[in-house]
């Protein structure tokens, strides 16, 4: 059944392009640091060298290899993106389905909280929280980002599940005495599987972008290398105004390629699975 579900996706050219680019960068992040064994933090006297045979993407102010930084950066940014996405998806699913199943006061309270978080500028709150933490691991950054991007998903899930709740098969399950938990897992969640997957893709996107933003303002992970941290170092060292393009162009290209390919994957899935948008 799964095969018939995803087959139409692979007939869509845009989807193939998107998933190929994404997988390429995923491989760069997973295999890159294993295959290109240069220490990204090792300082050398070859500082601010343009790309050459020895340094495929040049070096930064401390003589560190930009390609090695890029590969490690892609890995960390994807890690943070995935982690943030898992957190957002879990919160969103729990809040959305609880509100839909319990109704009444539970629904009202949860939706009030959701609306408050939705209206509150999440990146600002993330900046505020991060500013009070002296040591920020990759995981902490992912949690800060994941905590604030779930509201629109929770609302969509709730709306969708509310309409499913009025279907006959759900009535039958309720009459058969299913617990709320069983009802959610067996009857409700399967109906939102594709939407949840599409949202997961967008959450990864938000995580990668959020990390870059936090890092640029000086609140990224305090250890390790990420795409955002590379950009921050480049800005701090005035790489842009001194024309060291090999330093700030690659991390930006990686961010845009990753997030754009994820966007393409998500929108083409919408086109394929949503009959109202399907191409005739």
């Amino acid at each position, binding site marked *: 059944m799964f095969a018939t579900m995803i087959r139409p996706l692979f007939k869509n050219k845009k989807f193939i392009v998107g998933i190929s680019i994404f997988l390429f960068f995923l491989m760069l992040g997973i295999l890159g640091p294993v295959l290109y064994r240069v220490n990204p933090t090792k300082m050398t006297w070859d500082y601010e060298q343009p790309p050459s045979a020895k340094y495929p993407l040049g070096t930064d102010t401390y003589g560190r290899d930009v390609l090695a930084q890029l590969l490690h950066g892609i890995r960390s940014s994807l890690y943070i993106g995935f982690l943030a996405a898992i957190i957002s998806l879990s919160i969103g699913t729990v809040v959305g389905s609880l509100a839909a199943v319990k109704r009444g006061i539970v629904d009202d309270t949860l939706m009030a909280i959701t*609306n408050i978080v*939705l209206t*509150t*500028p999440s990146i600002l709150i993330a900046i*505020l929280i991060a500013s009070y933490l002296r040591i920020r691991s990759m995981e902490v950054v992912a949690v800060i980002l994941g905590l604030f991007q779930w509201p629109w998903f929770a609302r969509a899930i709730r709306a969708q599940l509310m309409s499913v709740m009025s279907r006959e098969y759900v009535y039958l399950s309720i009459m058969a005495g299913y617990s709320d938990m069983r009802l959610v897992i067996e009857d409700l969640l399967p109906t939102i599987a594709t939407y949840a997957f599409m949202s997961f893709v967008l959450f990864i996107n938000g995580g990668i972008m959020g990390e870059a933003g936090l890092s*640029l303002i000086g609140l990224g992970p305090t250890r390790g290398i990420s795409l955002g941290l590379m950009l921050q170092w480049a800005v701090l060292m005035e790489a842009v105004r001194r024309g060291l393009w090999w330093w700030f162009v690659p991390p*930006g290209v990686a*961010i845009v390629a990753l997030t754009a390919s994820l966007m393409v994957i998500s929108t083409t899935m919408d086109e394929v699975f949503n009959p109202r948008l399907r191409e005739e």
Partner: protein
Amino acid sequence: MASKPLFKFLLRRFIFLLVTYIVATTIVFILPRAIPGNPLAQLLSNLSRLAQANPEAIRAAERTLMAEFGIDKPMFVQYVTFVFKALRGDLGTSISFYPRKVIDLVVPVIPWTLVLLLPATLVAWILGNTLGAMAAYRRNTWIDKGVLTTSLIVSQIPYYWLGMIFIFLFGVRLGWLPTQGAYSLGTIPNLNWGFFLDALKHYVMPFASIVISAMGGWAIGMRVMVVYELGSDYSLFSEYLGMKDKRIFKYAFRNSLLPQITGLALSLGGILGGALITEIVFNYPGTGFLLFKALTTLDYPMIQGIFVILIASIYLANFIVDFLYALIDPRIRLGQEE
């Protein structure tokens, strides 16, 4: 014609935003006190350690801080003082610019941010929606495909990175435009043509980087929305009635604008965040640049103050958008909602 339903709607939104604002400022208040390791206590102990260097000044700063945060008083008293002071516009004293008040430091930079942010956001919204609607009208032609592909990529470019590319290309390589600041060093902001032209030159790149990367998202959203509306029952019915395509498109366009207005309200926070970072890249003397300085010096009173103001402005903007929405949507104006 200020109808009763309209007033009711606005009142409901106002109360909601007020509650949200109270929640947000409470978070601003609780965070430094709740995070393990208590950053405030740490800050104060750091200050007293530094006291040997310049005893008088730092001890004075410490006393002010102690009094302002009132750490020795019970939490509830601290909270009430915080709220009342904030309402009076007293956001405390800056540490890095001691003894200047936070409010006096923040207020002068706000216009710079507004001048950059408001026009850029509006221009991006208008251009993006127009492009998106055009693409949907000429669905599946090369215009549609071109707009869609470009928007998809462009919408994913962070404002600040596009800014960096612009600085490198037009500032460093071609030397057409100044690479930083809002006006040339050494000039004093005043109201003559020379200064205006100078400021305009500095304005082009930050403005363009926000407009271009924000536009893509609106174009994609609008295209999907119009395509959806064009496939809905009323469009099909109008088509069977023999109505002209252009006319049907006009209805679809109007119906699609409403969700885009809601989208504008919801994305304001994200746009502001992106613009703040763009300011840092351009060394543009706005709120983002001040916030960056406060963050690097761990000037917590200033960080808090900036947040209280930024969050309030986001909610105010939200309310203005709600008001426009209510004026445009007849269902709210006539009270037929729900």
